[in-house]
């Protein structure tokens, strides 16, 4: 079994992406959870809250997406 650097790099990239997805996962959970709380408290603001929630999710998701790209580059 020769040390196959390519396989090791692929495996490490996978682990790295997994670690990188933790933070955004927690973040998206917080964003969506708070949006639900806000909608329950003020249903008349639903439209605005939903738009803002998608924006928050999109910005939080960016970190996970950078990890996704780095996974392909590695």
């Amino acid at each position, binding site marked *: 079994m020769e040390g196959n650097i390519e396989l090791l790099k692929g495996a490490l990239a996978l682990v790295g992406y997994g670690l990188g997805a933790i933070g955004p996962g927690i973040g998206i959970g917080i964003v969506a959870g708070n949006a639900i709380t806000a909608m329950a408290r003020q249903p008349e603001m639903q439209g605005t809250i939903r738009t803002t929630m998608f924006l928050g999710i*999109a910005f939080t998701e*960016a970190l996970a*997406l950078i990890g996704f790209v780095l996974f392909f580059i590695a």
Partner: protein
Amino acid sequence: MILATECDTANEVICAPANVNDLFEFDAWFTVGGLAFTRTTFLMLLAALIVVALLYFGLRKQRLVPSKFDAVIEGLVGFVRDDVARDIIGPDSRKYLPYLLSIFLFILIGNLFEVTPLINFPITSRMAIPLFLSLVTYFIFVIVGFGKNRFRYLIDTAWPKTVPVGLRPLVGLIELVSVFFLRPLTLAVRLFANMVAGHLMLTLLLGSGVIFIAAVGDIGARSLIGVPWLAFGLFIFVFEIVVSLLQAYIFTLLSAVYIESSIHFEH
């Protein structure tokens, strides 16, 4: 494609799948001056044609009582006009409405190709298309930013006045990288990654489900493992319709937000 993989399910426990790129890369139909015309190219032109046809036939004549088809198209146009353009950009949103509407419908049709029978390929899962669309958005918001604020746009991004002096180099650097580099990148990759993941999941679940069930003659009762996979695949199928709509909406929404941040630039 995945069905073409030669694998004897009776003898081999794990079938080595074909290269994953086979799902996304097609052979060229013909070549025009070094540019290959592939299935993706054809589907891209088809999507553009569908968008034009939808808008043309939907909004051709204004009836007092719109037909059902007209009402759907008017609903889509009104959604982009009111909920995306006007709510985000504000009064001068009419200038950007044609762009936002066309990318919304193009991405929507392109994404929905994923769940269209006989096509089953989201054109937005090839990086070229999301990247091009996000670069168009990038050029629009950069040009608008420089047009409205002159060089204050660049200077105030790199040296934000609203932040305490000590933090300005750090925040400025982060802002500079995030506005001029990460924005177009994440915009493109978000759409691309979602569509690639969806296409892979659908192919793997539905494909393996069908393969297992089709191999019932060879492997007997073991082919029952294909049933839950097929069921899960069908569940994901419905989920992917939602993802298609959501990703088209988010791409348009973020384009609008980026353009708005260039118009009302305050730092």
